């Protein structure tokens, strides 16, 4: 152990109470920083999982049709070209996907694509013996859609079964909210009306995505049946795409748009306002909790400044024994480092245990997602950033008294004239 560290360890006990207060501040600051970040990012992560499990990572819809083309005029001695294809005014969106199976084949060739599902969508009126309500029919191929959504898990959270749906051509899956409004249970029959068409179906399962806007309107049925009901014999309303690496969705969507000439929207673009809200919440929580670390830093500064004043004679005697100004500064830097190390380690332990405890705390959340307990996200980065924040504050608080201690003149101290 270095002599400077040895001296710092002894100096640490000089003002035990203030040191313990500063240390506790760092422990609580780092700990709460970790907990708040784990929670905010936990809920964000859960939200992202939910939207990926319902609407997929990318949605391909609306064909892009160029309305203006590059024009090249040639002559004997010159060539000129007008580039207009990139201009927004030069494109027109045609609703839907005209050749969905061709598109699916093309999409499957993208390396990051893990699943593709054709969806035919249309508005209907659902009639039960109790009342009627507006809804949206989603015609799907079950296996394809299971590959791009969490429908299986959502049905298991509801009632009925996917097998029941799979083996019932007239079967439908209905959101929990809508089923409740229509007072339907699995096995009941209902009538769906679209335009002049009207058909009877059997409720094969009730799903619960947790997203109220989805559970209130969406009815899944077999693709062929939806085409027939909605009179959309060809094409698709959109194609839902799942990815292996969800974070690459914006780049993939852009590439798909260019290659497939269809509008492609990533989940980040689709949910930008929610994601920004989560991000703002995360930063706000970090800033709020960082004030604890900042206040502890001020306490730390105060404590170290007091130690410098109390230990001037010791500093003088160390200097008389050959200890350099750097040695004196290092002793106080060590003091800061010891508090930082103990504080952050305590903070990690506190953060991890409170995060674990919070994750077991039951709550009933429905609306933008369905959760029955606090959502937390375990990330090493929460610990790293918490530690860095504490390091900046504590080391700044240590450096100033350290420099002051190093500047003391031993002769002045012994003579009793040090400032």
């Amino acid at each position: 152990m270095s002599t400077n560290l040895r001296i710092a360890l002894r100096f640490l006990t000089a003002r035990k109470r203030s040191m313990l207060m500063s240390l506790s501040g760092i422990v609580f600051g780092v700990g709460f920083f970790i907990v708040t970040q784990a929670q905010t990012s936990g809920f964000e992560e859960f939200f992202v999982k939910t939207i990926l499990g319902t609407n997929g990572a990318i949605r391909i819809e609306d064909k892009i049709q160029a309305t203006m083309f590059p024009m090249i005029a040639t002559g004997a001695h010159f060539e000129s070209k007008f580039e207009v294809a990139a201009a927004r005014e030069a494109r027109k969106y045609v609703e839907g996907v005209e050749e969905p199976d061709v598109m699916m084949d093309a999409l499957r060739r993208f390396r990051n694509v893990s699943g593709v599902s054709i969806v035919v969508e249309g508005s209907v009126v659902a009639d039960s013996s109790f009342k009627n309500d507006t809804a949206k029919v989603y015609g799907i191929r079950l296996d394809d859609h299971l590959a791009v959504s969490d429908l299986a898990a959502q049905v298991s959270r509801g009632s009925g079964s996917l097998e029941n749906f799979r083996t019932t051509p007239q079967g439908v899956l209905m959101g929990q909210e809508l089923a409740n409004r229509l007072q339907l249970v699995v096995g009941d029959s209902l009538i769906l009306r679209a335009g002049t068409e009207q058909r009877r179906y059997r409720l094969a399962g009730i799903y619960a995505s947790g997203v109220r806007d989805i559970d209130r309107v969406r009815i899944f049925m077999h693709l062929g049946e939806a085409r027939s009901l909605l009179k959309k014999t060809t094409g698709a309303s959109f194609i839902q795409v799942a990815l292996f690496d969800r974070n690459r969705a914006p780049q993939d969507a852009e590439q798909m748009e260019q290659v497939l000439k269809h509008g492609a929207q990533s989940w980040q673009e689709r949910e930008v306002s929610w994601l920004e809200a989560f991000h703002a919440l995360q930063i706000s929580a970090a800033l709020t909790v960082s004030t604890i670390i900042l206040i502890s830093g001020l306490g730390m500064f105060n404590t170290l400044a007091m130690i410098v004043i109390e230990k001037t004679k010791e500093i003088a005697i160390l200097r008389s024994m050959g200890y350099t100004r750097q040695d004196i500064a290092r002793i106080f830097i060590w003091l800061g480092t010891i508090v930082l190390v103990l504080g952050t380690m305590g903070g990690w332990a506190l953060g991890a245990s409170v995060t674990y405890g919070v994750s077991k705390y039951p709550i009933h959340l429905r609306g933008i997602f369905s959760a029955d307990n606090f959502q937390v996200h375990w990330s090493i980065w929460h610990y790293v950033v918490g530690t860095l924040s504490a390091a900046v504050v504590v080391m700044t608080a240590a450096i100033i008294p350290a420099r002051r201690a190093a500047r003391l003149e031993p002769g002045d101290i012994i003579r009793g004239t040090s400032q």
Partner: protein
Amino acid sequence: MPLPSSDSSGLPPPASRLSPPAGGSADIALRCENLHRYLGQGEGRVHVLRGVSFEARRGNVTAIVGPSGCGKSTTLYLLGLLDQPDDGSIWIRDQLMSNSSDLDRTAARGEHIGFVFQFHFLMQEFSALDNVMMPMRKLGQLTEEEMAARAASLLSDVGLGDKTHRLATQLSGGEQQRVAIARALANQPAIILADEPTGNLDAKNSGIVFDLLTRLAKENGQAVVLVTHNPDIANRCDEIKPMRDGQFVT
């Protein structure tokens, strides 16, 4: 220790620096010439030392005596390189140190000078053994075991062999001063500077501490310069240098 670099001010060197230390023989541990020191600022500025010249020989005990405020302690701090003179030169073992860098003066203190102060100035949180090991740890020439053995031996020499692990706060004033003496001897310095080493002790302890200091220093061939108000102590030194108004008087 490397010789300090020459003055970078660009001014011609003072005459005192050009002249070799008089009697620069190996037995002169410390020498100063024409030291001047001012303290305070503005109207309160006082000319404390007015051309002090002095030399301390190995194995010799010199007492600086004089009334309060005559400049005894200031001289001692300058000789111990804890302070810098406004003019004049100081040689430690033939090396000019008066205008050397802070780092060189600090290194010289660690290697060649041991201090004993009136109020002991022990590190209160450390044991007697740790206090004595402190200068050795900085010098870094011995292993941890060698340092501990030497510190224990020095404490035994000053009669504290059975109290090596006591904290400074658990020792009496006389015992603390004996620990300070052991600490001053730790690195076997050429010079021991003592500022009123017995000033805070009763007559019995004063005698013990002085005898210890002088005996050990003489055994090791160290030059001892001490500042004292105590005429009994001064009379037992090899040489007495009376001081008045910032000058030695005969």
